[in-house]
C-alpha cells in the first residue's frame, strides 16, 4: 500500500508522518504542494506544520494550493485522507470537514501528552480502535480551539462525526472537547493531536509502564491499511 504525505512549504511533521507510514508497514510517498499528481497513492496524510507560514488563517492558503485540487477530488471519491494538526486545519479550510480552528483559549502554544477517547472506530483511520478506548497522543499547537455553529454541532454529534474527544483536560477550549472529526463517509479524518509522534517506543508519550513508550498512534496507520485491504 502506498500512502502519500504532502509537503507544503512550512510543513514540519511530514518526515515524521512518512516514518509512521513505514512503521505501519506501508510505503510512504512524498507529495509536493505545487504538483497536480498524487503518484498513484492509496491514501493521503496532510501533516502538521505551519504551511506557507500560516500568517493568514491557519491552513487557508494550503487549502488552495495546487495539490489540494487532487486531494479534494480523491477525498470526495472515497480515498482515505488524514489531516493532522495543520492538516486538520487544511481539511476544515478545504470544507472536507466542518467547523473551524481558532487560537487556543489560553492564548499560548501548548505541547503535552494528551489523553483522548475514541468516539468513532469505524472510519478508515480508526477501525483498529474500539469505541470508548482511551489513548494518549502528543498534542502541540497554538490554534487548536474547535468551533462550529450550534446546528452543525448538533448534527455532527448526532451523526457520529466526532472521532476523538479530549479527556481529563480540554487543552484549547474546543467545543464539546472535540479533538478530531470524521466526514460522514468515514474516509476523511482530522485531529489536532499528532499520532505520528506515538508510533515508536522510546520516542512517544510517557505511559505508566515506561518513559516515552506510548505507541497508540500507530493504530491510525495500521487502520488505513486494514481498510484498504477490506476495500480491495
Amino acid at each position: 500500500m502506498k500512502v502519500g504525505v504532502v509537503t507544503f512549504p512550512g510543513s514540519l511533521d511530514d518526515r515524521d508522518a512518512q516514518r509512521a507510514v513505514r512503521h505501519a508497514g506501508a510505503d510512504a510517498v512524498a507529495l509536493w504542494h505545487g504538483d497536480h499528481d498524487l503518484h498513484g497513492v492509496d491514501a493521503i496524510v496532510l501533516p502538521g506544520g505551519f504551511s506557507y507560514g500560516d500568517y493568514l488563517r491557519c491552513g487557508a492558503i494550503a487549502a488552495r494550493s495546487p495539490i489540494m485540487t487532487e486531494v479534494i477530488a480523491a477525498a470526495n471519491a472515497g480515498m482515505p485522507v488524514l489531516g493532522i494538526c495543520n492538516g486538520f486545519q487544511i481539511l476544515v479550510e478545504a470544507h472536507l470537514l466542518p467547523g473551524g480552528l481558532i487560537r487556543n483559549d489560553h492564548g499560548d502554544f501548548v505541547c503535552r501528552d494528551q489523553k483522548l477517547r475514541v468516539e468513532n472506530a469505524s472510519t478508515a483511520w480508526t477501525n483498529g480502535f474500539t469505541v470508548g478506548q482511551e489513548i494518549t497522543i502528543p498534542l502541540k499547537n497554538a490554534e487548536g480551539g474547535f468551533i462550529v455553529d450550534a446546528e452543525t454541532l448538533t448534527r455532527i454529534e448526532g451523526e457520529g462525526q466526532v472521532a476523538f474527544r479530549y479527556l481529563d483536560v480540554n487543552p484549547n477550549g474546543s467545543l464539546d472537547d472535540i479533538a478530531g472529526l470524521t466526514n460522514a463517509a468515514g474516509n476523511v479524518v482530522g485531529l489536532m493531536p499528532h499520532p505520528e509522534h506515538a508510533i515508536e517506543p522510546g520516542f512517544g508519550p510517557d505511559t505508566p509502564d515506561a518513559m516515552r513508550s506510548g505507541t497508540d498512534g500507530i493504530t491510525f496507520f495500521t487502520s488505513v491499511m486494514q481498510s484498504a485491504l477490506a476495500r480491495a
Partner: protein
Amino acid sequence: MSDLAKTVTAASRLDSVANAIATPEKEQPYAALGLKSDEYQRIRDILGRRPTSGELAMYSVMWSEHCSYKSSKVWLRQFGQKVSPEMTKNLMVGMGENAGVVDIGEGWAVTFKIESHNHPSYIEPFQGAATGVGGIVRDIISMGARPVAVMDALRFGAIDHPDTARVVPGVVSGISFYANCLGLPNIGGETWFDPIYQANPLVNALAVGVLRHEDLHLANAKGAGNKVVLFGARTGGDGIGGASILASDTFSAGGPTKRPAVQVGDPFAEKVLIECCLELFAGDLVKGIQDLGAAGISCATSELASNGDGGMEVSLDEVLLRDPTLTAEEILMSESQERMMAIVEPDKLEGFLAVTKKWDVETSVLGEVTETGRLIITWHGETIVDVDPRTVAVDGPVYDRPISYPTWMDALNADGAEKFLRPSDGPTLKEQLLTLIGSANLSDKSWITSQYDRYVMGNTALSYPDDAGMIRVDEESGLGVALATDANGRYAYLDPYAGAQLALAEAYRNVAVTGATPVAVSDCLNFGSPENPEVMWQFSRAVEGLADACLELGIPVTGGNVSFYNQTGDVPIHPTPVVAVMGVIDDVGRRVPSGWQDSGDNLYLLGSTHLELDGSAWAGVIHGHLGGTPPKPHLAREQELGALLAAAAREGLLNAAHDLSDGGLATALVDASLRFGIGARVWLDELLERDQIDPLTALFSESGARVIVAVPREEDVKFLRLCEGRNYPVARIGVTDAGAAGVGAALELQGLFTASLEELRTASRATMVEHFGAVVGYAADLSGSGIHRAPTGARIVE
C-alpha cells in the same frame, strides 16, 4: 554650479573610492559608529586614504566587539592552546568557523553552538529571542548540517519585578514561535531569576545539527570566476544600528533616518531556507556558504573572501531589496534575517537556481570570486568599497585590556555561609526543602517548556525535565547525542575561575547521567563591560578556568560566543559563563532517565559530600546570602564518575540517574520522585557517619561530582562491584517506593520527615503559575490545595 557644489552633491549621493581620494579631509562620523579615533586612523593607514562611507560602515561593524572579539581574543586563544591530541582527534572543524564540527562515528558528524541575543531580547523580548534562535540555526545550516534541536539558557531579573512580567512571556513566546515554526524540538535548557539580570536578561540559544562527513561545508570563497549568490529573504531596513547614524550624518535629506535596531524574524522563510539549503548541499551545488547575521553583507563578503584564496567583486545593485530607498551603507549593514550567501561554480548555477526556485526562495547573483585579493563592491556603477578583506574580517584591533583584582573580592570570599544555623530537626528541614523547591530557580518550569514542541522530528529521546536533552542521529543504529547547558552566576561571582569550571563540570555530569560520553564543549561567555578592569579580571579568570578544565577533562571547546557590556547602569551582571556539553551515546535505547520509574529499586549516592553551602541555593533562598567560596571543582572525580556512569548504563544497571547541583541531594530526590510520581524511603545515617556531616549539609550542600542512581535489585551486586572496582565513593541511601494502594506516594527521609509527592508537586509548580499564568493540565491539580509560602525572615547566628 561650482566644482565644490558638484562635489558636495555627488558626495551626498554616493561616496565612491574616487570621491574619497578627492575629498581626503571630509569629516566622518566614526565615533558615532563606535570606532575609536586610533581605530579610525588605522583604517586610514590601511587604505592609504580616508575610507568611503561604505568602507567605514564595514570596518565599524566588523571591528565591533561583537564581531571582532577584540577584547576577548587574547584570552580565548587558550582554548586553542590548552589542547591534547586526544581532544582534537575527533574534531573536524574547530573554533573560528560558524560552528565546530565533531565526528561522532558511523560516518556522522554533529555541529553545535550556543550564542547570545541578550540586548535585543531586553529591548524587544519577542523578536529579540526569536531572531536569537534564527541566527544560531543559520550558523548550523551553513556548516552543511540539518538542524535537529534547540535549547535555551535564560536568565531574568527578580521573578516578582514588574518588568520581568514583560520580558519573560515575550522571550518565551519568541523562542516558542520561532523554533516551533522551524520544526525543531526544544530539548532543554535552564532558567534563572536574579535581580542582577533585571535590566539585562540573558538569552542564550543553542542549536545542534547533524551531517554526514562528506556534507561538510565551509565559509570560504575559492576559485576565481565562481559566483557569489545571495538568497533567502530580501534585504530590508531592519537591524540597522550604526547605519542610521551614517545615513543621517552623511545624507542631508530624503533618506530614512531612524531604523529599528532589533531585527524581525520570519521563521517560515527560515524553514524554507533550511530545506532549500539541504537540497542544494545534497545536489553538490554549493562550493562555500555563509549565513548573514551580525553585520549582514559586510560580514558575509569579507569573511568569505578572507577565508578564500583570492578576492571578490560584487554589485550591491543586484541585492533584492524590501525597501528601495535603502542606501548602500544600509544595505551593507542591514541585519535582515533569513539570508544566506553561497559561492557557486558557474556550471552549477543553473542547478542552484532551479532548487531555489522550487522552494520559492528569491535569489540574486551579486558578483564573483576574483584573483585580485581585493574585496570590491560597486553601487550604481561606481566602486564604493575596495579593501583587502582580511583587514576587515581578520586583522581587526586586538586589545589587551587592563585587568584588576576586584577590591571587594577578599571581603566577599571571607563572608561564608557557615555563620547560619544549620537546623537538624525534621520539621524545619522539611519547611526549608519546600521553600527551596518553590523558589524561582528551582521551581517547576513547565510554564516555559510546555510552550515548546519537544516531539517534532520524532527523534527526541530525552528532553526537559531530564538532565540533558537527547536526540537520535541514526535511526538504524540508534546512535545519538546528548546536550546540556549550565552556568551558576553565583558561583562565578564568588570565584570566576572555579565558577567556569563548575559550569563545565555540571554540564558534563548532566550529559554523563544519561549514559552518554561527553565529547565537546561550546560556551557563551556573558560578562559586564570589558572596559571595567574588574570585569576583565573576571573574564580572564573564567576563560582560564574553563580552558584548564577542558584540558583536564579532555574535551575541546569547538566554538562559542562572547557577550560583553551586560550590565545595569554601572553594575555588571554576575559573570555567567554558560557552558554547553555534547556527549555521544551509541544507542539512545540505553539512555537513562532522571526519575524513578519502578518501586523497589535501590538508591545510591555516588560521590562524597562536604560542607559546601557558600553560594548555594540554600544560602540564597533561605538566607538571602551570597558570599564565601563556591564548592571545589573536582574534575578528575567528574571524569571518573562519567566513565562509571557510561559503563553502568552500557550494562543496563541503571533505572535512573540524576545529577546533584543547585539545592543539593534534597532537591535531586524531589526531582527524581516527581518525574514519574514514584516516591522513596531515604536514610542518611551511613552518609552522615562516613562524610562526617550534619543532616542539613547532607541535604543541601552542593559538593560536585555527585549523582543519585536507582539500581534494580537484580543488578545490585554488579553495580557495587563496578563502583568498588573504580574506587568511587558509593552509599546506599534508600529504596524507591510507589506507595501502597490508596495512599499516594511520598518522599520519606527516615527519622526526619515525610513529604507526600502531592505536597512537593504543589510547592514546585505554584511559583511559575503564580507569576506567569496557568499551565494546561495543572489548574485542576493546584486548585483547592494549600500552596506553600516561603517563611519570612532568615535565622542568623549572631
